[in-house]
């Protein structure tokens, strides 16, 4: 046991190590607990929740709450379930992620390989736009979307998410391309390759990892957004807004099991991405704290 610790400079005794494991496991339970409660209770009949223990496993297992959350639960005034909103979220997320990632890649390319005076200031301004409290743009955005005829529509939401997403995607690609040898780009230029050919042939082939980071980050952020969806969603509300409507509805019996199932449905896509590509997600998070 002790041998495991030898190649770090810090040495710890057996009792200390037991204590360390204890603390680490307790924290793991703390993080897992809410997820466990949600999953366990989404598989119970309602009576078992109101009359029973939330920590207990279901006595009678049922997927009824999941079916109800998906297709029949009352969202606002319509008993449509979350299905149409799930679709809205997909229709919003896919183009928004694609467009913001493509623009971010091109911006990063220009800002590192085709530098011009003032490019750093431009980048700084773009970067700051990622961190603004979005309350500052809500009023004019509502006006403009209305004038453009995009209020309450999916294209409107796509526009909003592209606009406030390119700061991050540009940041990712800029920092990534900055590490790419500029000499190679110069050599290609001398050989007569143009702007797009260099991008397509030289930079794009090595951009796999950062593209995964950017896509995952944008997907998670846009899928999880609530403020823009609630403000500009109108008839095309995304999943998060629908979930909130489902949970906060004050009419009728509170169907906790359906709420839990709905919450997991809303979380499933991003959780899935996290399980499959968690490493890239963490990389995106870290790069999002600017330290590249």
């Amino acid at each position, binding site marked *: 046991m002790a041998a495991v610790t030898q190649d*770090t400079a810090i040495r710890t005794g057996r009792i200390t190590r037991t204590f360390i494991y204890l603390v680490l496991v307790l924290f793991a339970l703390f*993080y897992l607990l809410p997820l466990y409660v949600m999953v366990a209770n989404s598989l119970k009949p309602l009576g078992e929740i109101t009359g029973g223990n939330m920590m207990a496993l279901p006595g009678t297992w049922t997927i009824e709450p999941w079916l109800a959350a998906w297709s029949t639960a009352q969202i606002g005034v319509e008993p449509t379930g979350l299905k149409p909103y799930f679709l809205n979220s997909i229709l919003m997320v896919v183009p928004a992620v694609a467009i913001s990632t493509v623009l971010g890649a091109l911006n990063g390319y220009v800002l590192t390989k085709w530098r011009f005076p003032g490019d750093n200031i431009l980048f700084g301004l773009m970067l700051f736009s990622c961190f603004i409290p979005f*309350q500052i743009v809500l009023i004019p955005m509502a006006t403009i979307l209305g004038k453009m005829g995009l209020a309450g529509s999916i294209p409107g939401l796509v526009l909003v998410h592209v606009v406030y997403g390119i700061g991050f995607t540009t940041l990712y690609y800029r920092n990534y391309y900055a590490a790419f040898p500029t000499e190679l780009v110069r050599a290609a230029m001398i050989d007569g390759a143009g702007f797009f*050919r260099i991008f397509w042939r030289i930079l794009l082939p090595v951009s796999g990892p950062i593209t995964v980071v950017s896509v995952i980050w944008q997907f998670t952020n846009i899928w999880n957004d609530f403020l823009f969806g609630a403000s500009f969603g109108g008839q095309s509300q995304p999943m998060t807004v629908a979930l909130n409507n489902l949970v906060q509805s004050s009419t009728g019996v509170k169907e906790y099991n359906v709420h839990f199932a709905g919450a997991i449905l*809303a*979380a499933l896509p991003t959780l899935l991405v996290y399980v499959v590509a968690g490493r890239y997600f963490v990389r995106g998070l870290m790069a999002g*704290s*600017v330290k*590249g």
Partner: protein
Amino acid sequence: MSTDAMSTQVTDTDLRTRLQDWIPKLVLSPSVAMMVVFVYGFILYTVYLSFSGSRMLPSYDLIGLANYTRLWGLSAWWTAVINLAIFASLYIAICTAIGLTLAILLDQKIRGEGMLRPIYLYPMALSFIVTGTAWKWFLDPGIGLENTMHLWGWESFEFGWIKDRNMAIYTIVIAAVWQTSGFVMAMFLAGLRGIDNEILKAAQIDGASNWNLYRRIVIPLLRPAFLSAFVILAHLAVKSYDLVIALTGGGPGRATELPATFMYSYTFTRNQMGTGAASAVIMLMTIAAIMMPYLYAELKEKK
């Protein structure tokens, strides 16, 4: 597309180079245009509205600082600001403490680190609405933790913070810490992994105890990670909106209103757009005061 241009105009190198000069700027221009209009233009517009008498719809009659004086005279705004102060300081302090502790413990060559780390971090992948929903029921005395403890035989256990005006704000801290502390752990862990082991070994030969090693050497070396964590957490705190909506809806009463929820309700449900705009401007200035020096230093460093 550029190949066509090339083959037809090989001789005209002058035109070609000039075109090549313009392409990068042309490619950048849609993003710059969007940024100028939708970010900085909109900020200026909201600043303008904050000096105007806008109510339900934007109006352009300037009324000076009236919105700001009105705002700072509102008890609801003061509640929101004080709540933010409580929430932000506890949130930042607890996240940093948990994050640092977990990172240091995980850095002791732990078996199963590969399993623990993703568990600490997964809440970051969830929407605040989902987190809020989960914690809302978990903290509900009727079906949640309190009820569970009663069923397990601890009859006197009480945990009704979420229904208590004076304590509800702390439930928001709990849920927010749950969501982001794993991320702070990851930031510190990256910092720890970046520290040269030789420095530590040298200190150990000099007879430093583990405690002193961390206190005197490791933690000071983590200063950049502390700074990043502070900036990220502070800006998340100021922007917190979804979590409050999902967890308490700003209640009980107005007990958990934050500036972000205040701005929304004053602008869109109470038709006090001028006052709402003023509160948004104050939020922006708070974040700018935190982010600008940080971003400036980061960008300068990179050069």
